[in-house]
Every structure is written in structure tokens, then in C-alpha cells.
């Protein structure tokens, strides 16, 4: 199937941190995380690079750290992208079979898929990923694989993740200008996190992964083993800190500290009127900050964010079909009370997302923030699996220097 010993690298240029994961496909096809590197992100806002120079420094640092830890040389990476320019939609494409009473073959399917992907694609957009959903033959029968079915018209339904071509190029450029690596593929970060967090069974039964990031919040919904719906909301943990800074009248950095130390997604009763508590910050007069206020500001923001997500998930019928529940990852998943709040809003069981069927240091795997880079590694492994062997092989020769174990 795929080459054991293959090294894959995932890089996420997040709003709060830049993070790289180095993974290896082990003998049994299992993933093993060899190294992880991270740096505080300074050049990213709402998931998109706005200061390429600063972002470049952070990327260099994160990759260098990962290289050192895993003892490999990085040549190509999978890059996670997000930002409000991304659009996730379900497209349809039709292909008419020219001769009547002919069985549909693989080429017809490909043509229908191509029509679905490109006919609705607006100018200036780039398709990041597309996942085929199902096929309608002659407007009625639904097939997962229509090859061999006799029909006159085939309609493909595809979930497509689109991005603004130039803005995607900006992210790629930021990496390639900073370090001598090749961006193998850009991947929607919501999809990457979902791949890391969900097991095959959960994907089959129906599950939602919500990545509560620093600048953006992404979601991905899997059902019957396929990505059915995904999306992004350009609101994240930064907004929480920003709200706190405004409402409590403290500097942003202090708001960030307060959020981490005392934050909560729910208003706890005992704090509702409390004025005592942490102070506004060093260098300022010792003005106490009201914990009750802090919790109210935070809970309102989280509630709104989750409600906006619920609105979009409900529209895709995801809340009914996701029997396995909702998995939260990203830094926001650490917020105390967020699971309870999410449970109330989604009316589904809510779990902290833990990276599944990957081996590596436990500290890395249990950390909800690292779901995206690890998911990128898994994405790379899955992609390699799908590729025909000769191409995979030729591609791997470029890894020759780092895949010494392969020959043993």
C-alpha cells in the first residue's frame, strides 16, 4: 500500500502559534509523531498572514525545532490554511451519457465530478479540496459508485472547499520565502483537525469536529465515512481577549492572561457579583477585576460563536446526523465549561478531541492545539495511499536522504 518509513510534515501557521509536526508512517500503516516544533505567531490575524516577514521568522523557528526533535531534514510540507476567504459548499455537476442504454463508466463519473467542481467555481477561486458525496442517476437513484449502472444522465454531488487564489498563494509564499521547502499541498485546517481527532468508526457514524482556534473557528462534519459539510467562522479566541480588554478596560496582553487564568465559558454562580480577584495588571494601580464581569463577557462571546456554528450545522442537517457528537479541539477547547455550553447549544454529546490512532509523546497527542498539524500528517499519509504506486515512488525518491530506514 504505502511506503513504511515515509516522512510527512504538517505545518500550521495559526493566529496564536505556528506549529509543525513530523510524522512517520510505521510498518503497519500506523502514524508515529516523531517531532513537533512551535513558535508564537506574530504575523497572522484571523488565520491569514498579514506580516510575511514576522510570519517567516516564526515558521523558520517552528520548522527548525521540529527538524531537530525528529532528526530529519524537511523538504516538503503540507500546509494548513484557513481564513474567511475560504468557502465550503456543496456543488452539483451533470454529465449526460451520449449513447442511450450504456453502462456508466469511470470516465463518465470523472466528467460529472469535473463539472461539479469547476462549473460553479467562481473566478479567482482555487479549489483546495473536493470530496465526492454521491451520484444521482436519471434524477432518482442514488449511488455511491455508479460505475456499471445503466442510465442517461449522471449528476455528481461534491463538497468543495474553495479559497481565494491569491490569498492562498500568500500563505504558500510566506513559507517558501522563509525556508527552502516545497509546499506539497494546502489543506483546509478544519479538515486536518477532523482527520486527527476522529476514528474511522466515528466518521462512519456521524461526528462533528469544531476547531476553536485563535483567530478563526472551523468545523467539519463527517457522516458515512465522508466529509459532508465544513465551514469557517472568522471569530476565535482573539475575539474573546479583545472583548475582555474592552469590557474590563485592561491591556490586551493582560486580557489574554486573565482569559487563560480565570476564563470560563459559563457564568458560575459564586462569581456573579464578586469584585475581588485578579488585578488589572502590572504597572497599573491595583484595580481589582470583577470575575463575574469577566465570565459574563466571555460566556456571551462563546455562546454567540457556538450558536452561529449551530445555525450553520443545523442547516446542513449535521446536528441530527452526528450521533457520535461534537469533538472540540484547538486552544479554545481548553476553556473551562466550554463542553457544557456546547452541549447545551448543540444538544449533542460533546467531547474534548484527542488525537486518535497515532503514537507519539502523550503530551503532544492529548493537547487539543496540536490536532491540526497532526491531522496534516495524516492527510499526507492518506493522500499517499490513494496515489498510484509509480508516482508515489518517484516522489519518494526526493525523500531518499531522510528515509534511510526504508531500505532496511
Amino acid at each position, binding site marked *: 500500500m504505502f511506503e513504511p518509513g515515509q516522512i510527512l510534515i504538517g505545518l500550521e501557521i495559526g493566529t496564536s502559534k505556528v506549529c509543525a509536526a513530523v510524522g512517520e508512517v510505521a510498518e503497519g500503516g500506523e502514524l508515529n509523531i516523531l517531532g513537533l516544533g512551535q513558535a508564537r505567531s506574530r504575523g497572522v490575524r484571523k488565520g491569514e498572514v498579514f506580516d510575511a516577514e514576522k510570519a517567516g521568522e516564526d515558521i523558520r523557528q517552528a520548522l527548525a525545532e521540529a527538524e531537530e526533535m525528529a532528526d530529519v531534514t524537511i523538504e516538503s510540507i503540507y500546509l494548513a490554511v484557513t481564513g474567511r476567504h475560504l468557502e465550503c459548499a456543496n456543488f452539483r455537476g451533470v454529465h449526460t451519457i451520449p449513447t442511450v442504454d450504456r453502462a456508466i463508466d469511470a470516465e463518465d463519473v470523472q466528467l460529472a465530478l469535473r463539472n461539479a467542481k469547476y462549473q460553479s467555481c467562481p473566478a479567482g477561486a482555487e479549489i483546495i479540496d473536493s470530496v465526492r458525496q454521491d451520484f444521482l442517476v436519471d434524477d432518482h437513484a442514488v449511488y455511491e459508485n455508479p460505475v456499471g449502472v445503466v442510465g442517461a444522465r449522471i449528476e455528481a454531488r461534491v463538497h468543495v472547499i474553495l479559497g481565494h487564489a491569491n490569498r492562498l498563494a500568500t500563505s504558500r509564499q510566506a513559507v517558501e520565502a522563509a525556508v527552502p521547502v516545497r509546499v506539497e499541498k494546502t489543506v483546509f485546517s478544519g479538515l486536518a483537525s477532523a482527520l486527527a481527532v476522529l476514528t474511522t468508526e466515528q466518521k462512519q457514524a456521524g461526528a462533528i469536529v469544531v476547531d476553536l482556534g485563535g483567530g478563526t473557528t472551523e468545523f467539519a462534519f463527517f457522516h458515512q465515512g465522508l466529509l459532508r459539510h465544513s465551514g469557517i467562522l472568522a471569530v476565535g479566541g482573539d475575539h474573546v481577549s479583545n472583548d475582555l*480588554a474592552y469590557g474590563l478596560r485592561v491591556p490586551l496582553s493582560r486580557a489574554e492572561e486573565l482569559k487563560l487564568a480565570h476564563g470560563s465559558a459559563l457564568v458560575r454562580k459564586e462569581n456573579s457579583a464578586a469584585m475581588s480577584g485578579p488585578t488589572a495588571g502590572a504597572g497599573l494601580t491595583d484595580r481589582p477585576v470583577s470575575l463575574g464581569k469577566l465570565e459574563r463577557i466571555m460566556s456571551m462571546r462563546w455562546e454567540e460563536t457556538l450558536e452561529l456554528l449551530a445555525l450553520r450545522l443545523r442547516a446542513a442537517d449535521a446536528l441530527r446526523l452526528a450521533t457520535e457528537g461534537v469533538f472540540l479541539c484547538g486552544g479554545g477547547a481548553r476553556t473551562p465549561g466550554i463542553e457544557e455550553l456546547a452541549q447545551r447549544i448543540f444538544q449533542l454529546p460533546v467531547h474534548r478531541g484527542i488525537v486518535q490512532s497515532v503514537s507519539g509523546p502523550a503530551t503532544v497527542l492529548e493537547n487539543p492545539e496540536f490536532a491540526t498539524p497532526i491531522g496534516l500528517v495524516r492527510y499526507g499519509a492518506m493522500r499517499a495511499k490513494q496515489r498510484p504506486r509509480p508516482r508515489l515512488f518517484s516522489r519518494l525518491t526526493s525523500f531518499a536522504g531522510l528515509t534511510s530506514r526504508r531500505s532496511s
Partner: protein
Amino acid sequence: MNFQAPELAPARSAHDRSVSLCGVGRAGARLVRLVAGSFSGSAWTVDTESEAKSQATEDIGRVELGERTTRGLGCGGDAAYAQRIAEAEVARIQSRMGPGLLVLVAGIGGGVGAGISPVVARLAREAGAIVVAVVIEPYEFEGGLRQRNAEQCLITLQGACDAVIRVSNQAVARLNPELSAIQELMDLADRHVARVISGLLGLLQRSSLVPVGLAELERWARGRQAQGVAAFAEAEGAERIQRVWEDLIQHPFLQPSNRLTDAGGTLVHVMGGPDLRMDELEWVQRELRQRCPRAQVLVGAGVDPESTGKVQVFLLAVRDGVGLTAATNVPGLESAGGRPTPAPIKTLLFEDAPPAGDSRMVGLDLAAESREARNRSAQAARKAQQQQFNFVPPWTGRFDSAEGTLHQGENLDEPTFVRRGVKLN
């Protein structure tokens, strides 16, 4: 004074502008009954209570919805329920629709008013009509549900109508604190509203010398989703125009006074007897120009042979619906009564026409007014405006320079509690 001859078009006959009047809910029906006497077009009401049947009169059509579902008991303040009822019986409402202009009257605190009036407005627009809604906001004492209904309904109506004119019962109560008897107060409020409606209808129906009617209103309101306030006053005798003007600008529905100053468009229609003088019109025009420096001003005039000695003035001030972003409850932007004003604050100024000299829209041209005089009045107004215009730019902190995250007219970068109007202390 320099008249633009083509503007003085011959008066149009009444049937050119078919105006119909529709009252939704209990308050709407009551007001329609109050004004129907002086109204010549078709008037009808929509309600869900079989009780209303007893009050119905012959010249007013009536559509009773949900006879089976509510068993004639009404909706109990549930706007969503009322909306479902109306949507189930769309055909019955549609049968009454036609092109022309529909004046929709509803008390939007109640379930029927809040739930059904957007449906009626939408159907009317689909039928090709221009819809102007006159909505009555509930009293404060009526409680949270009705206030919420009203706020929700205002937002939907603004999307569904060409123009929304808000009148507030509470404003009447606030301006008449000495009137403590609730019956009297409510009657007074009803009379105020009824006069505004009949003023609006009169403007649209009666033939005028300097007409501002359906066409003007349409051109003006179409697609803007305007939201406005209106007032009506009359006087007779010496200095009648000055007195009528005093009444107008102190009218409860135009309070607080920045509703006039911030207006993007104002329409005044002066109706008088054959003795209506030119200088009276000019006077109104000048006063209005000073009060609403940024507004596009329309002045119309009509003569009614029967009202010698009297003058009636109807004033409509509208601001565009474009600035809805800042509309929702920014703290500090509260009306005198302490209730948050859901009205849009951030109005795009000079959006489609500089205020002076647009002779296409303005019945009386200002060309003769000297430039200096205009500048002076504009300057004076600008000074006044700085004191009255409470515009707080939305605070987005670290996202100030970033592209906003818009969702249904709100910028999500703004703190949630600010947008929801929550007071922390």
C-alpha cells in the same frame, strides 16, 4: 423665488394612485377604523380573533386567519405562531393584493402585528405594491415579550417594506406626564397615530398644487429600506404656520429631536385653504432646511377649498436603512426614556443627493436663496449637529485595521456584549 415650471404639474385625479390601507392585529384594526371615515380607498384588516367580527364595519374588509387553529382566540402574543398561521393562508391575503401603494398599520408588540405584518408586506411587494408600514411600538409597561416582539418585527419589516414609519406610544406618555388616566392616555396616543395615518393618506390621495405623492415617495423609498418618523399638526388663525410648525417639532413622535437632525430625507406636505400663501410655504421650507441640514427635502402643497383659514402640515423624516450595523443597542445611545433605541445611528450622509438644489425632487427650488445664506445656515446646523449626533464608532480593538467579519449586518469583531447592549455594571 425661481419656480421650476415643470414641477408644477397639473393635479392628478385620485384614481391614478390607488392607495389601500391595511390594519393588522387589534391595534391596526382599531386605527384603520378610526381613519377609514376620511379615506376613500380600500381599507381592510387582518386579525385572528373572532371577537373582532363584532367591531367590524361594513366598509372595511376583514380577513380572519387561523379560524381553525386558534379557534378564534388570537395568537396570545406568539409572533412565530401568528406567522405560521398567516403563511398557511397566504392565498386569502393575496386575494386582496394589488399594485399601487399599501399603507400597513400594525401594533408590533402583539403576536399578530409582529408575526403577520411582515407576511402581508412581503405578499404586497410580490404583488407589485409599494409598502409603507406605520408601526406602533408598545408602551414600556407592556413588558419584555412585547418589546422583544417589536424589536424583532422592526428588523424584519425593514427588510420587507419600502419604508417603515415608527410611532411610539411611550413617546406620547412621556410628553404628557400629567395625563395619568390610562384610558385618556391611550385615546390620546390613538388620536396622534390616527392623525399621522390620515395625514399620510391625505398626502397620497388628495390632489395637490405641488404634489408629493406616490411617485415621489416611491422613488424616494424604493430599495432604501428606510425607517422614519412622522407627525401631523394643524392650526388656524393668525400666525398659523408658525404655530403649526411649533406643534410639529415638539410632536411626541419626533422626539428626541435628533430624529429630525439626523434625517436623510424629509417630506413636508402643507394643506391649506385657498388662502394658503406662498410665503408660508417658503417659511416652512426655510425652517426645515435649518433643522435638517443633511436631508433631502421635499415640500408639497395642496389646496382644499373647504378648509379656508386652516393649515395642516404633515411631516415625514426618514433615515436610510443602510447603517443597520450600528443599529443594535450600542450603549450610550439611549433615548431619553432609558430604552435602547433600535434605530440606525450610522446613516450614510449625502448618500444619493446633496441636500440643496436637487430640483427633480424638491418641489420648490432653492436656487434663488443666496449661497451665503445657505452656507450660514449649514454652518449653524453643523454646530448644532455636533452636540446632538451621538455617533460612537464601533470598537473592534485589535481588529481595527482588519477586514470586518460581517454576519447579518453585525460586525462580529465588535464585542458581543456591546452589540447585545448588555450593561456590565
